[in-house]
Protein backbone atom coordinates (compact mmCIF):
# COMPACT_ATOMS: atom_id res chain seq x y z
CA UNK A 1 0.00 0.00 0.00
CA UNK A 2 1.31 3.43 -0.90
CA UNK A 3 2.03 5.89 1.86
CA UNK A 4 -0.09 9.01 1.73
CA UNK A 5 1.67 12.37 1.23
CA UNK A 6 4.75 10.60 -0.02
CA UNK A 7 5.74 13.02 -2.74
CA UNK A 8 8.02 11.49 -5.28
CA UNK A 9 11.09 13.57 -6.05
CA UNK A 10 10.81 12.31 -9.61
CA UNK A 11 7.31 13.76 -9.89
CA UNK A 12 8.42 17.15 -8.60
CA UNK A 13 11.40 17.19 -10.94
CA UNK A 14 9.23 16.10 -13.85
CA UNK A 15 6.71 18.84 -13.16
CA UNK A 16 9.47 21.45 -12.95
CA UNK A 17 10.79 20.36 -16.33
CA UNK A 18 7.29 20.45 -17.81
CA UNK A 19 6.79 23.98 -16.49
CA UNK A 20 10.02 24.99 -18.23
CA UNK A 21 8.49 23.77 -21.48
CA UNK A 22 10.63 20.65 -21.85
CA UNK A 23 8.85 18.65 -24.56
CA UNK A 24 10.51 15.39 -23.50
CA UNK A 25 9.22 15.89 -19.95
CA UNK A 26 5.72 16.54 -21.25
CA UNK A 27 5.90 13.29 -23.21
CA UNK A 28 7.14 11.43 -20.16
CA UNK A 29 4.36 12.72 -17.90
CA UNK A 30 1.79 11.73 -20.49
CA UNK A 31 3.42 8.30 -20.84
CA UNK A 32 3.42 7.80 -17.07
CA UNK A 33 -0.24 8.57 -16.50
CA UNK A 34 -2.18 8.20 -19.75
CA UNK A 35 -2.98 4.50 -19.24
CA UNK A 36 -4.35 5.13 -15.75
CA UNK A 37 -6.35 8.15 -16.88
CA UNK A 38 -7.76 6.25 -19.84
CA UNK A 39 -8.56 3.15 -17.76
CA UNK A 40 -10.37 5.16 -15.11
CA UNK A 41 -12.26 7.10 -17.79
CA UNK A 42 -13.42 3.88 -19.49
CA UNK A 43 -14.67 2.51 -16.17
CA UNK A 44 -16.55 5.71 -15.36
CA UNK A 45 -17.91 6.43 -18.85
CA UNK A 46 -18.29 2.89 -20.26
CA UNK A 47 -17.23 4.05 -23.68
CA UNK A 48 -13.74 3.94 -25.16
CA UNK A 49 -14.23 6.78 -27.64
CA UNK A 50 -15.51 9.10 -24.95
CA UNK A 51 -12.69 7.97 -22.70
CA UNK A 52 -10.11 8.92 -25.34
CA UNK A 53 -11.59 12.40 -25.68
CA UNK A 54 -11.80 12.83 -21.93
CA UNK A 55 -8.22 11.62 -21.46
CA UNK A 56 -7.02 14.29 -23.86
CA UNK A 57 -9.07 16.94 -22.07
CA UNK A 58 -7.71 15.76 -18.75
CA UNK A 59 -4.11 16.21 -19.87
CA UNK A 60 -4.80 19.62 -21.37
CA UNK A 61 -6.28 20.61 -18.03
CA UNK A 62 -3.38 19.09 -16.12
CA UNK A 63 -0.79 21.05 -18.07
CA UNK A 64 -2.78 24.26 -17.91
CA UNK A 65 -3.00 24.06 -14.14
CA UNK A 66 0.34 22.40 -13.42
CA UNK A 67 1.54 25.53 -11.63
CA UNK A 68 -1.29 25.10 -9.14
CA UNK A 69 -0.22 21.58 -8.20
CA UNK A 70 0.78 21.50 -4.54
CA UNK A 71 4.27 20.01 -4.61
CA UNK A 72 3.77 18.86 -1.01
CA UNK A 73 1.19 16.35 -2.20
CA UNK A 74 1.59 13.37 -4.49
CA UNK A 75 0.87 13.91 -8.15
CA UNK A 76 -1.12 10.74 -8.80
CA UNK A 77 -4.24 11.54 -6.73
CA UNK A 78 -4.24 15.04 -8.21
CA UNK A 79 -4.29 13.56 -11.71
CA UNK A 80 -6.98 11.05 -10.74
CA UNK A 81 -9.07 13.82 -9.18
CA UNK A 82 -8.98 15.84 -12.40
CA UNK A 83 -9.96 12.70 -14.32
CA UNK A 84 -12.97 12.05 -12.10
CA UNK A 85 -14.05 15.68 -12.41
CA UNK A 86 -13.78 15.64 -16.19
CA UNK A 87 -15.73 12.38 -16.37
CA UNK A 88 -18.44 13.88 -14.17
CA UNK A 89 -18.68 16.92 -16.46
CA UNK A 90 -18.71 14.68 -19.55
CA UNK A 91 -21.51 12.52 -18.15
CA UNK A 92 -23.55 15.62 -17.30
CA UNK A 93 -23.09 16.93 -20.85
CA UNK A 94 -23.92 13.54 -22.33
CA UNK A 95 -27.10 13.37 -20.29
CA UNK A 96 -28.22 16.73 -21.71
CA UNK A 97 -27.74 15.84 -25.36
CA UNK A 98 -29.63 13.02 -27.07
CA UNK A 99 -27.31 10.43 -28.53
CA UNK A 100 -28.42 8.85 -31.78
CA UNK A 101 -25.86 6.09 -31.48
CA UNK A 102 -26.49 3.55 -28.80
CA UNK A 103 -23.62 3.11 -26.44
CA UNK A 104 -22.27 -0.35 -26.71
CA UNK A 105 -20.72 -2.34 -24.00
CA UNK A 106 -17.13 -2.28 -25.08
CA UNK A 107 -15.33 -3.42 -22.00
CA UNK A 108 -17.07 -6.63 -21.22
CA UNK A 109 -16.67 -9.65 -23.40
CA UNK A 110 -19.84 -10.28 -25.41
CA UNK A 111 -19.69 -14.03 -24.95
CA UNK A 112 -19.55 -15.70 -21.60
CA UNK A 113 -16.60 -18.03 -21.67
CA UNK A 114 -16.34 -19.23 -18.11
CA UNK A 115 -17.48 -18.44 -14.61
CA UNK A 116 -14.73 -15.86 -14.06
CA UNK A 117 -15.68 -13.94 -17.20
CA UNK A 118 -19.35 -14.10 -16.27
CA UNK A 119 -18.54 -12.78 -12.80
CA UNK A 120 -16.44 -9.96 -14.29
CA UNK A 121 -19.27 -9.05 -16.63
CA UNK A 122 -21.74 -8.91 -13.75
CA UNK A 123 -19.39 -6.74 -11.71
CA UNK A 124 -19.05 -4.31 -14.62
CA UNK A 125 -22.80 -4.21 -15.03
CA UNK A 126 -23.13 -3.56 -11.31
CA UNK A 127 -20.59 -0.74 -11.55
CA UNK A 128 -22.64 0.90 -14.29
CA UNK A 129 -25.62 1.03 -11.97
CA UNK A 130 -23.69 2.72 -9.17
CA UNK A 131 -23.87 6.46 -8.77
CA UNK A 132 -20.72 8.21 -9.94
CA UNK A 133 -19.27 8.93 -6.48
CA UNK A 134 -19.54 5.29 -5.41
CA UNK A 135 -18.23 4.09 -8.74
CA UNK A 136 -15.24 6.44 -8.60
CA UNK A 137 -14.28 5.34 -5.11
CA UNK A 138 -14.78 1.65 -5.94
CA UNK A 139 -12.63 1.80 -9.10
CA UNK A 140 -9.93 3.97 -7.51
CA UNK A 141 -9.66 1.60 -4.55
CA UNK A 142 -10.15 -1.84 -6.05
CA UNK A 143 -8.80 -1.39 -9.56
CA UNK A 144 -6.33 1.50 -9.33
CA UNK A 145 -5.11 0.54 -5.88
CA UNK A 146 -5.21 4.02 -4.34
CA UNK A 147 -5.30 4.12 -0.53
CA UNK A 148 -8.15 5.84 1.28
CA UNK A 149 -6.09 8.96 1.94
CA UNK A 150 -5.21 9.49 -1.70
CA UNK A 151 -8.79 8.89 -2.79
CA UNK A 152 -9.89 11.50 -0.28
CA UNK A 153 -7.32 13.92 -1.72
CA UNK A 154 -8.34 13.13 -5.27
CA UNK A 155 -12.03 13.70 -4.66
CA UNK A 156 -11.60 16.47 -2.12
CA UNK A 157 -13.75 14.62 0.40
CA UNK A 158 -13.19 13.65 4.05
CA UNK A 159 -11.69 10.26 4.74
CA UNK A 160 -14.85 9.08 6.50
CA UNK A 161 -16.97 9.95 3.48
CA UNK A 162 -14.68 7.94 1.21
CA UNK A 163 -14.91 4.91 3.51
CA UNK A 164 -18.68 5.19 3.66
CA UNK A 165 -18.99 5.47 -0.11
CA UNK A 166 -16.71 2.49 -0.64
CA UNK A 167 -18.72 0.39 1.82
CA UNK A 168 -22.01 1.28 0.13
CA UNK A 169 -20.52 0.64 -3.30
CA UNK A 170 -19.43 -2.85 -2.23
CA UNK A 171 -22.83 -3.55 -0.73
CA UNK A 172 -24.62 -2.52 -3.91
CA UNK A 173 -22.30 -4.59 -6.10
CA UNK A 174 -22.74 -7.61 -3.85
CA UNK A 175 -26.48 -7.13 -3.81
CA UNK A 176 -26.58 -7.30 -7.58
CA UNK A 177 -24.31 -10.35 -7.63
CA UNK A 178 -26.67 -12.04 -5.16
CA UNK A 179 -29.70 -11.16 -7.26
CA UNK A 180 -27.99 -12.60 -10.32
CA UNK A 181 -27.07 -15.76 -8.47
CA UNK A 182 -23.34 -15.14 -8.68
CA UNK A 183 -22.80 -15.64 -4.96
CA UNK A 184 -23.44 -19.12 -3.60
CA UNK A 185 -25.97 -19.46 -0.84
CA UNK A 186 -24.52 -20.24 2.53
CA UNK A 187 -26.22 -22.91 4.51
CA UNK A 188 -27.62 -21.52 7.73
CA UNK A 189 -27.33 -23.59 10.87
CA UNK A 190 -30.52 -24.81 12.37
CA UNK A 191 -31.13 -23.47 15.89
Amino acid at each position, binding site marked *: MRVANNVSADDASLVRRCLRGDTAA*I*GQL*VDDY*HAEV*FGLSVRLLHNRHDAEDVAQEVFLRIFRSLRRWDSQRPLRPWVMGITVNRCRTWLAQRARRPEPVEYVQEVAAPEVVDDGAELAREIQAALRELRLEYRSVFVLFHERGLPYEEIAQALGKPLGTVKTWLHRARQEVLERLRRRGM*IPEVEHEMP
Partner: protein
Amino acid sequence: LEQHLAGCSSCREQYAAATRLVQGLKSLPRIAAPPELARRIAGAVVRDRVVRRRRMKVRLYVTAALAASVFLMLLVSYSQQPSPNVLPHQVRPLAQNEVRPPEAPPDAPQRTNGADSLVERTREQLHMLLDALPAEVAVENLPGVPELEPLDPAAQSLKQAGLDVTASLQTVTRSARQALDYFSRELPVLDLGTRE
Protein backbone atom coordinates in the same frame (compact mmCIF):
# COMPACT_ATOMS: atom_id res chain seq x y z
CA LEU B 1 -11.08 -17.01 11.74
CA GLU B 2 -11.96 -20.46 10.48
CA GLN B 3 -13.31 -21.41 13.89
CA HIS B 4 -15.52 -18.33 13.97
CA LEU B 5 -16.73 -18.84 10.41
CA ALA B 6 -17.61 -22.44 11.20
CA GLY B 7 -19.94 -21.28 13.94
CA CYS B 8 -21.34 -18.02 12.43
CA SER B 9 -23.44 -18.30 9.32
CA SER B 10 -23.78 -14.52 8.87
CA CYS B 11 -20.03 -13.98 8.84
CA ARG B 12 -19.61 -17.04 6.65
CA GLU B 13 -21.98 -15.55 4.13
CA GLN B 14 -20.22 -12.19 4.15
CA TYR B 15 -16.86 -13.86 3.83
CA ALA B 16 -18.03 -15.93 0.88
CA ALA B 17 -19.44 -12.84 -0.82
CA ALA B 18 -16.26 -10.86 -0.28
CA THR B 19 -14.14 -13.73 -1.60
CA ARG B 20 -16.34 -13.93 -4.65
CA LEU B 21 -16.05 -10.18 -5.21
CA VAL B 22 -12.27 -10.29 -4.98
CA GLN B 23 -12.25 -13.20 -7.40
CA GLY B 24 -14.43 -11.25 -9.83
CA LEU B 25 -12.29 -8.12 -9.54
CA LYS B 26 -9.20 -10.14 -10.40
CA SER B 27 -10.88 -11.43 -13.52
CA LEU B 28 -11.90 -7.98 -14.73
CA PRO B 29 -10.41 -7.43 -18.19
CA ARG B 30 -7.45 -5.06 -18.13
CA ILE B 31 -8.15 -1.88 -20.05
CA ALA B 32 -5.34 -1.12 -22.46
CA ALA B 33 -4.98 2.35 -23.88
CA PRO B 34 -4.85 2.69 -27.67
CA PRO B 35 -1.23 2.64 -28.87
CA GLU B 36 -1.39 6.12 -30.45
CA LEU B 37 -3.16 7.78 -27.54
CA ALA B 38 -0.06 8.96 -25.66
CA ARG B 39 1.48 10.50 -28.78
CA ARG B 40 -1.82 12.17 -29.70
CA ILE B 41 -2.26 13.60 -26.22
CA ALA B 42 1.34 14.87 -26.06
CA GLY B 43 0.89 16.54 -29.45
CA ALA B 44 -2.34 18.21 -28.33
CA VAL B 45 -0.68 19.43 -25.15
CA VAL B 46 2.29 20.95 -27.01
CA ARG B 47 -0.02 22.64 -29.54
CA ASP B 48 -2.16 23.99 -26.73
CA ARG B 49 0.91 25.43 -25.02
CA VAL B 50 1.98 27.20 -28.22
CA VAL B 51 -1.48 28.71 -28.74
CA ARG B 52 -1.73 29.80 -25.12
CA ARG B 53 1.75 31.32 -25.19
CA ARG B 54 0.84 33.30 -28.32
CA ARG B 55 -2.34 34.56 -26.67
CA MET B 56 -0.33 35.51 -23.59
CA LYS B 57 2.09 37.52 -25.76
CA VAL B 58 -0.76 39.40 -27.42
CA ARG B 59 -2.24 40.15 -24.03
CA LEU B 60 1.15 41.37 -22.83
CA TYR B 61 1.58 43.65 -25.85
CA VAL B 62 -1.90 45.11 -25.41
CA THR B 63 -1.24 45.78 -21.74
CA ALA B 64 2.12 47.36 -22.56
CA ALA B 65 0.53 49.54 -25.26
CA LEU B 66 -2.17 50.67 -22.83
CA ALA B 67 0.38 51.42 -20.14
CA ALA B 68 2.52 53.36 -22.64
CA SER B 69 -0.54 55.34 -23.77
CA VAL B 70 -1.44 56.27 -20.23
CA PHE B 71 2.17 57.18 -19.47
CA LEU B 72 2.42 59.33 -22.60
CA MET B 73 -0.86 61.00 -21.80
CA LEU B 74 0.33 61.89 -18.32
CA LEU B 75 3.66 63.10 -19.69
CA VAL B 76 2.01 65.38 -22.24
CA SER B 77 -0.46 66.71 -19.70
CA TYR B 78 2.37 67.47 -17.32
CA SER B 79 4.49 69.15 -19.97
CA GLN B 80 1.64 71.46 -20.96
CA GLN B 81 1.25 72.84 -17.48
CA PRO B 82 2.77 76.34 -17.02
CA SER B 83 6.18 75.84 -15.47
CA PRO B 84 7.09 78.10 -12.58
CA ASN B 85 10.35 80.08 -12.81
CA VAL B 86 11.25 79.20 -9.28
CA LEU B 87 11.76 75.85 -7.65
CA PRO B 88 9.05 74.67 -5.26
CA HIS B 89 11.27 75.10 -2.20
CA GLN B 90 11.96 78.67 -3.22
CA VAL B 91 8.32 79.64 -3.22
CA ARG B 92 7.52 81.86 -0.33
CA PRO B 93 3.89 82.01 0.87
CA LEU B 94 2.32 85.39 0.16
CA ALA B 95 1.24 87.52 3.01
CA GLN B 96 -2.33 88.71 3.12
CA ASN B 97 -1.43 92.33 2.30
CA GLU B 98 0.69 91.23 -0.68
CA VAL B 99 -2.26 89.96 -2.64
CA ARG B 100 -3.19 92.54 -5.23
CA PRO B 101 -6.37 92.41 -7.27
CA PRO B 102 -5.83 92.74 -11.02
CA GLU B 103 -5.87 96.29 -12.19
CA ALA B 104 -9.02 97.19 -14.06
CA PRO B 105 -9.27 99.71 -16.88
CA PRO B 106 -9.90 103.22 -15.52
CA ASP B 107 -13.28 103.60 -17.23
CA ALA B 108 -14.57 100.16 -16.11
CA PRO B 109 -16.48 99.58 -12.89
CA GLN B 110 -14.65 97.90 -10.04
CA ARG B 111 -14.51 94.08 -10.47
CA THR B 112 -13.15 92.10 -7.64
CA ASN B 113 -14.18 88.55 -8.32
CA GLY B 114 -14.69 85.94 -11.04
CA ALA B 115 -18.44 86.57 -11.16
CA ASP B 116 -17.79 89.93 -12.76
CA SER B 117 -15.59 88.26 -15.36
CA LEU B 118 -18.31 85.78 -16.10
CA VAL B 119 -20.79 88.60 -16.56
CA GLU B 120 -18.39 90.27 -18.96
CA ARG B 121 -17.95 87.12 -21.02
CA THR B 122 -21.69 86.56 -21.15
CA ARG B 123 -22.07 90.10 -22.33
CA GLU B 124 -19.44 89.49 -25.00
CA GLN B 125 -21.31 86.47 -26.29
CA LEU B 126 -24.52 88.44 -26.29
CA HIS B 127 -22.81 91.10 -28.33
CA MET B 128 -21.69 88.49 -30.87
CA LEU B 129 -25.21 87.23 -31.16
CA LEU B 130 -26.53 90.69 -31.67
CA ASP B 131 -23.98 91.22 -34.44
CA ALA B 132 -25.58 88.40 -36.28
CA LEU B 133 -28.96 90.10 -36.17
CA PRO B 134 -30.19 92.21 -39.11
CA ALA B 135 -29.08 95.84 -39.32
CA GLU B 136 -32.37 97.30 -38.20
CA VAL B 137 -31.89 95.61 -34.82
CA ALA B 138 -28.21 96.58 -34.42
CA VAL B 139 -26.56 96.76 -31.03
CA GLU B 140 -26.42 100.53 -30.92
CA ASN B 141 -30.17 100.63 -31.46
CA LEU B 142 -30.82 98.44 -28.48
CA PRO B 143 -31.17 100.23 -25.20
CA GLY B 144 -29.12 99.27 -22.19
CA VAL B 145 -26.27 97.44 -23.96
CA PRO B 146 -22.93 98.96 -23.04
CA GLU B 147 -19.73 98.83 -25.09
CA LEU B 148 -17.61 95.65 -24.88
CA GLU B 149 -14.49 95.95 -22.85
CA PRO B 150 -11.27 93.91 -23.03
CA LEU B 151 -11.05 90.89 -20.69
CA ASP B 152 -9.42 91.57 -17.40
CA PRO B 153 -6.32 89.47 -16.41
CA ALA B 154 -8.34 87.05 -14.25
CA ALA B 155 -10.66 86.21 -17.14
CA GLN B 156 -7.67 85.93 -19.48
CA SER B 157 -6.03 83.33 -17.25
CA LEU B 158 -9.32 81.44 -17.00
CA LYS B 159 -9.57 81.40 -20.79
CA GLN B 160 -5.97 80.19 -21.08
CA ALA B 161 -6.66 77.38 -18.58
CA GLY B 162 -9.65 76.31 -20.64
CA LEU B 163 -7.52 76.18 -23.77
CA ASP B 164 -4.89 74.09 -21.94
CA VAL B 165 -7.52 71.60 -20.78
CA THR B 166 -8.85 71.32 -24.33
CA ALA B 167 -5.36 70.62 -25.67
CA SER B 168 -4.75 67.96 -22.98
CA LEU B 169 -8.05 66.27 -23.73
CA GLN B 170 -7.11 66.04 -27.38
CA THR B 171 -4.09 63.92 -26.40
CA VAL B 172 -6.28 61.72 -24.23
CA THR B 173 -8.84 61.14 -26.94
CA ARG B 174 -6.12 60.36 -29.49
CA SER B 175 -4.52 57.79 -27.15
CA ALA B 176 -7.88 56.21 -26.38
CA ARG B 177 -8.71 56.02 -30.08
CA GLN B 178 -5.37 54.31 -30.79
CA ALA B 179 -5.98 51.83 -27.96
CA LEU B 180 -9.46 51.04 -29.27
CA ASP B 181 -8.07 50.55 -32.78
CA TYR B 182 -5.52 48.12 -31.39
CA PHE B 183 -8.20 46.18 -29.50
CA SER B 184 -10.48 46.01 -32.52
CA ARG B 185 -7.62 44.55 -34.59
CA GLU B 186 -7.05 41.82 -31.95
CA LEU B 187 -10.71 40.84 -31.66
CA PRO B 188 -11.55 37.49 -33.28
CA VAL B 189 -13.69 37.64 -36.37
CA LEU B 190 -17.10 36.15 -35.74
CA ASP B 191 -18.44 34.00 -38.49
CA LEU B 192 -22.16 34.51 -38.17
CA GLY B 193 -22.93 32.65 -41.35
CA THR B 194 -25.68 33.54 -43.75
CA ARG B 195 -29.35 33.29 -43.04
CA GLU B 196 -31.54 31.53 -45.44
